[in-house]
């Protein structure tokens, strides 16, 4: 089927298109130069046209996500969808079930979402849930920052072996990127401990967070992965942690980006930086250090961040940062789930309530906003809520509206949030408002580029996948700065969403629920001879220390329905 989208106000930052009326032609799932006269016309006059949204950090599939669902029936009780035709039912506010996850993203015009934490030994679980997650293109990051093999190679300075191992592991688990979570800290949590900062040696392994981050940063570029290392820094959520954050950022400063696929030019993606921008020494004198973090990002070109914006909801926190979740359980008294995973990682799940009236939650909200608004170049700051950690992804339209409207923010600060927001942060003094062009950057083009997917994602140029969102908001006659509820509603329920050239959403409803997107994964080998040697070594240790057989480790082809391997040569 061919389509032509006419008269829309197109926002396509990757191609420098800022609200111009350009016709978009679609044929065979791709954006093309021209279509035949028989192409179906979609009238987008008085509407916004953008590439499909790209979420580069979300938790939607896998063991810990499912543990979040299992742990919290109360999250599902009043938030559900019914079966309609082929559209499956589902439930869950902060942790929706799989089918519902696909539908909800699609309704907002999001067409790509990356699962940010996959324990390699549990990779099949993540991929099994992907099989039941419709409509989206997706991929998953392998957790490697506490992996015993990685720590040993890096400790010995065997970077080549480490690269061979990592490339092999990502390939056999059908992963997409290197994820580092609280490097060294989660291993320490195996004994109930943690590490403080980046220079605290890991028990037994005697390596520091700094060495792990830097080592994997190098390994990433030796392999030439499309995405940079994806770092969740040490000390998450602790007052005063911004110093650790800045030190961690600086470790990658002199590492050259070397992707063998894509256009990434940065060596570090730092995730949910909101949780890592805290000053003070305790919750009593806790304050924002977001300006210092944004200043660093403004002055350095090796880094992209995503925010992890707090949305002021009751939600479910879930992370591979096991010790952090235990601390949260101790702090709140809320129920606590935890999974320690042999030789690799751990994770924790704890419900959390970000109450607007709570001083800490308010300041966290403000820090996120500061990071967005104080970062000059929006190509460096990607919109996330670290779903569901700082809030569920269904709140993205609200976050977008906050960014577009100073008035919306001011109303919230004046009328709903705790006075600490004005005392401990600068948010009330910032009147910057994002343009729709910048919204398209933070939710589309910036994310696609740092993922290495900008050839086909995050833009509307010829050759791109025809993933397109059309929103009912007229930028020529409506002003998002004042009509923020209208823009929020428009982004919550897209008028049309195209996925690979097919209409999957119309008038905010899913019309093609059986649609199924690709799974991106990295098919690479660092050095085949070295890999053989490394794998032989891995097999020996596997027998001794893993509880499954080596043969059970890999992810079989059956677990991928629409495979999209990226081969690195």
């Amino acid at each position: 089927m061919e389509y032509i989208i006419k008269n829309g106000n197109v926002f396509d930052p990757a191609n420098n298109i800022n609200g111009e009326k350009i016709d978009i032609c679609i044929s065979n799932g791709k954006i093309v130069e021209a279509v035949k006269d028989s192409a179906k016309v979609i009238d987008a006059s008085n509407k916004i046209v953008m590439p499909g949204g790209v979420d580069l950090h979300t938790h939607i599939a896998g063991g810990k996500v499912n543990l979040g669902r299992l742990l919290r029936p109360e999250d599902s009780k009043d938030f559900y969808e019914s079966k309609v035709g082929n559209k499956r039912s589902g439930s869950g506010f902060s942790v929706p079930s799989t089918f519902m996850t696909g539908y909800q993203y699609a309704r907002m015009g999001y067409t790509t979402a990356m699962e940010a934490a996959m324990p390699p030994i549990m990779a099949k679980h993540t991929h099994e849930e992907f099989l039941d997650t419709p409509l989206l293109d997706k991929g998953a990051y392998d957790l490697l920052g506490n992996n015993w093999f990685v720590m040993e190679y890096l400790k010995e300075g065997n970077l080549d072996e480490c690269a061979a191992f990592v490339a092999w592991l990502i390939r056999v688990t059908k992963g997409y990127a290197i994820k580092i979570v609280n490097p060294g800290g989660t291993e320490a949590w195996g004994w109930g401990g943690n590490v403080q900062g980046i220079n605290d040696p890991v028990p037994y392994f005697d390596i520091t967070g700094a060495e792990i981050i830097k080592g994997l940063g190098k390994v990433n570029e030796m392999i030439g992965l499309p995405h940079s290392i994806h770092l969740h820094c040490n000390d998450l959520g602790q007052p005063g942690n911004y110093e650790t954050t800045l030190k961690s950022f600086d470790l990658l400063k002199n590492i050259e980006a070397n992707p063998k696929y894509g256009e990434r030019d940065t060596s570090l993606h730092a995730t949910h930086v909101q949780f890592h921008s805290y000053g003070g020494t305790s919750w009593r004198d806790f304050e924002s250090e977001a300006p210092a973090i944004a200043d660093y990002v403004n002055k350095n070109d090796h880094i992209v961040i995503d925010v992890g914006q707090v949305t002021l909801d009751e939600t479910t926190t879930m992370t591979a940062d096991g010790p952090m979740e235990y601390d949260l359980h101790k702090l709140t008294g809320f129920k606590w789930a935890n999974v320690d995973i042999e030789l690799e990682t751990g994770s924790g799940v704890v419900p959390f309530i970000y109450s607007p009236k709570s001083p800490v939650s308010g300041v966290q909200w403000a820090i996120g906003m500061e990071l967005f608004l104080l970062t000059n170049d929006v190509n460096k700051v990607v919109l996330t809520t670290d779903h569901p950690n700082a809030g569920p992804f269904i709140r993205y339209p609200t976050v977008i509206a906050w960014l577009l409207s100073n008035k919306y923010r001011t109303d919230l600060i004046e009328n709903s949030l705790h006075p600490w927001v004005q005392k401990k942060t600068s948010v009330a003094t910032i009147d910057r408002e994002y343009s729709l062009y910048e919204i398209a950057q933070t939710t589309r083009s910036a994310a696609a580029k740092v993922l290495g997917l900008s050839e086909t994602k995050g833009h509307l140029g010829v050759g791109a996948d025809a993933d397109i969102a059309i929103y009912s908001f007229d930028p020529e006659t409506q002003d998002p700065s004042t009509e923020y509820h209208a823009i929020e509603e428009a982004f919550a329920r897209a008028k049309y969403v195209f996925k690979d050239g097919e209409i999957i959403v119309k008038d905010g409803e899913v019309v093609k629920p059986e649609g199924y997107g690709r799974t991106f994964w990295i098919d690479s080998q660092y050095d085949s001879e070295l890999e053989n040697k490394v794998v032989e070594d891995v097999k020996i240790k596997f027998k001794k220390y893993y509880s499954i057989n080596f043969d059970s480790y890999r992810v079989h082809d059956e677990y991928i329905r629409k495979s999209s391997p990226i081969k690195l040569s």
Partner: protein
Amino acid sequence: MELVKDVPCPFCGTLCDDIIVKVEDNEIIGTINACRIGHSKFMDHKSATRYTKPLIRKNGSLVEVDMDEAIDKTAEILANSKRPLLFGWSSTECEAMGIGVNLAEELKGVIDNTATVCHGPSLLAVQDTGYPVSTLGEVKNRADVVIYWGCNPFHAHPRHIGRHVFSRGFFRNRGRSDRTVIVVDPRKSDTAKLADIHLQVDSGRDYELLDALRSVMNGHEIPYETVAGIPRDTIYQAVDILGKAQFGILFFGMGITMTAGKNRNIDAGICTIQELNQFAKYTLIPMRGHYNVNGFNQVCTWQTGYPFCVDFATGYPRYNPGESGSNDLLQNKEADSMMVVGSDPGAHFPQKALERMAEIPVIAIEPHRTPTTELADIIIPPAFVGVETEGTAYRMDSIPIRMKKLVETDLLSDKEIMEKILERTKEFIASK
């Protein structure tokens, strides 16, 4: 003869994946590494009590029919029911389960699994209290204190102890002698005989013992000579050991989930483990019985948001254990048809539930003659997962394992059968 290596065993929740199976002329003639029960499960695939053709009860006796007729009749019964119950799902693979959930949704019926009669209370306790767990490799590599509460792995999970507890691990390179084993069981079970400490708790008084342990852990003294049949000093001694551990693990089974207190016992058990984390690292693992009973809870949770007892009557998933559980529905005479997949409620359900099963149409997707098939009106024999067909299973610690196909069969897999039933059911519903 061919030796197939690295085969997962489709029997118990230990899900050993290191079995070597001897195959000759499309038949399994032996195994290496499997325990006695695992071995017989592999050998069973050609047993005399195995069904090879679909059967329908006509005028009281079972007659062979072709697959289309069996599927057709199944779909008709389900589609014409007001409250169909799809039950079982502990001994099949995850894809079949996923289609089962889809079928339940299509029927506006109820789907439930065998957890309802084993670890269901654990699931409820998890939802109340939390779930601090670890994988079995963590136990092998780190654990210096191992507690078995209300379970007897020596018989129920025969290779569990050898593989994960008595074996050497990275930080426990002497294996057994690096670990203190505590068994809590009213009986002198064979597992208890291997223990360093056996707390022979009075039957049904686990909650009291947990309470006493927690009191002592939190600095209180016990004013009684004995609690739940255990002398005070023994409790002090146990707490002393627990407190001095580096990494402790609690394995628990039906001896505590299904005795007096049920989910309240597990609540207390989980709280104990959470509180022990003040002193050392502590986690727990439920000793799940069948090899993929956990898999159903996983699939059902990711598709619906809930692990079992899921009711689609309103068109969306609702969860109301105590009302939407299979035993509730049967005993209240609500369920008016029942499909059983990969389990044997006929052998495990209470009499009142069985009486209802005898009254309503029962469809069994089941390879063997069992007490359930005795009650069934339709029997559809599937291929054996892990022997004749592939699929995914989740071990007791939630590590997914790929089950293997070792021999050829003409029989359809559970997944294929479910697909056919789903398709046919949709047609019936559409034509109504």
